[in-house]
């Protein structure tokens, strides 16, 4: 019998969707060995969060009132104490930016192995089999580990838990050592706004690192003009300063849902796909037939963008 402790993620008064996905993954692992699923909600309006997290299959929700927002020092202390109290086999956390800010510290403090960014999990109560991606999604690996572990799960791989459970909701008396809190959040800031809102566009012509040089962006702009479309991009284009931040699609940029998304020289890394997978129709132009973007495209043009894009522009002019 293996119990699981799933940790939720929230920001500025709202639980994030990965929380419910982590609950689902946790329930799955607990089911595989007849164990219990414990859920932790730490900081913020925890009583409200606990009610919301009382989804089908949750056995207990443990709340810790301490501060409003995420702080990795607080999370690390609370989770290690919860682990000592509950003795779960697996601690499950989202592979979110905050998850990556405490999961490795928790694993280290508890002297447990860590597997991150898993997309599938399976356990027999003794051995955990974790599936992960490598090389930007070009291959998948399965790994095994025995015994207890800390595991982070990739977003959108498990469905969000729903229904209403009959979990016991208890306040956990964590002992927070304030001297060990050596970081503090002073503010949040929204970035990447401005005069162009790519989330409003019906057609996005989106460009990635395959474009190679800043001068070549003209090809993309020409195509966008011919289609009366808006130009967006993957992250490296923004990192290079070739386009402003408000054009970036993805996890740390914008989530877009246009009628048509034309991905040009974009590989389709998970952080990019997180921002565009809801597009009505996806066209990908890529020289690499194995690029992950080709897998989610409706129309995959396996060809050189420097040939295809000008031909398309001409077609539409």
């Amino acid at each position, binding site marked *: 019998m293996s119990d699981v402790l799933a940790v939720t993620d929230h920001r500025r008064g709202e639980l994030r969707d990965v929380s419910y996905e982590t609950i689902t993954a946790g329930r799955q692992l607990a089911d595989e060995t007849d164990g219990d699923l414990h859920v932790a909600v730490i900081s913020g309006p925890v009583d409200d969060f606990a009610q919301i997290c009382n989804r089908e299959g949750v056995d207990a929700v443990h709340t810790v009132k301490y501060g409003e927002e995420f702080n990795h020092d607080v999370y690390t202390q609370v989770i290690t104490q919860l682990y000592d109290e509950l003795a779960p086999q697996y601690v499950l956390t989202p592979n979110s*930016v905050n998850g990556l*800010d*405490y*999961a*490795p*510290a928790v*694993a*280290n*403090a508890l002297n447990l*192995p*860590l597997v991150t960014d898993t997309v599938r999990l399976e356990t027999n109560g003794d051995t955990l089999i*974790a599936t*992960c*991606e*490598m*090389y*930007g999604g*070009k*291959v*998948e*690996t*399965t*790994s*095994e*580990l*025995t015994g207890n572990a800390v595991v982070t799960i990739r977003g959108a791989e498990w469905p969000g838990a729903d229904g209403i459970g009959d979990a016991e909701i208890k306040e956990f008396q964590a002992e927070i050592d304030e001297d060990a809190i*050596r*970081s*503090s*959040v*002073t503010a*949040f*800031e*929204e*970035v*990447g*706004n401005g005069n162009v809102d790519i989330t409003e566009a019906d057609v996005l012509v989106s460009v990635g690192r395959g474009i190679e040089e800043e001068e070549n962006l003209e090809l993309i702009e020409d195509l966008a003009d011919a289609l009366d*479309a808006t130009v967006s991009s993957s*992250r490296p284009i923004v990192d290079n300063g070739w386009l402003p931040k408000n054009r970036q699609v993805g996890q*740390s940029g914008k*989530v877009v849902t246009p009628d*048509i998304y034309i991905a040009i020289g974009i590989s389709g890394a998970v952080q990019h796909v997180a921002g565009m997978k809801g597009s009505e*129709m996806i066209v990908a132009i890529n020289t690499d*037939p*194995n*690029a992950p973007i*080709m*897998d989610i*495209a*409706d*129309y*995959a*043009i396996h*060809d050189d963008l420097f*040939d295809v894009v*000008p*031909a*398309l522009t001409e*077609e*539409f002019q």
Partner: protein
Amino acid sequence: MEILVTVKEVSTVEDEFGIENTTIVDQYLNADLNELDDYAVEEALQLQEAGIADEVVTVTIGPEDCEQTLRQTLAKGADRAVRVWDDALENIDLLDVGAKTAILRAIVEAEEPDLVLTGVQSGDDNWGSTGVSLAAELGLEWGAVVNHLKHDLEDGTASDRRELEGGVEELTEIELPAALTIQTGINEPRYASLRGIRQPQRKELDVHTLGDLGIDEGAVEGAVTVTDMYEPESETDATVWQVRPEETAPELGELLHEKEVAP
């Protein structure tokens, strides 16, 4: 003040490749400095140029082959480099986070830096955990996914921005000594200058074995074993066009007309 930057040589995979057991066949792999580590090195060099750091040291875990990549960091301007390798590491498929932490811990203890910079993750196995794990191991403070760092560490704190999801950034004050994992876009990594390229031959590059560092071989075995590697099953029902562009264009044109988006 010393800044230690952990770097890794990573492989990029060619479009077409083959897999043998749990690795990609060597001939399809190209080695390079991990992209995110390049930003970490650049940040350290900028802190040095701003007069905040006296010394920038880079460290890697890897066989002799990766010395070229490590020398790249010297060519860019790092003062010294350290490489750790051991016969005992040769047969380990995957150095997991615990193993890397055990090794890098010894280097941090020897160097006593005020700031450790790492890339957020590596481009090959993308575990995204070494920096934070290392900090926790050594009792340093830390911050993950930092995309801005104020070049002023005067009162023993680092003021930084952490890049969260959805275009939100978190402003955080972090007490030093600390480890920060650096995100792309924080700066513009430099290319090595010509002078820089000639210099690194003369710069110090120390090589240590596990024994030198007093690390027990058992500490690097790792708890995670890779059992399989494969190309993900394609779930696509995509229409694939790989004809000549002159033919693709009208087809796509027609499609977009149908969708009423093309003029």
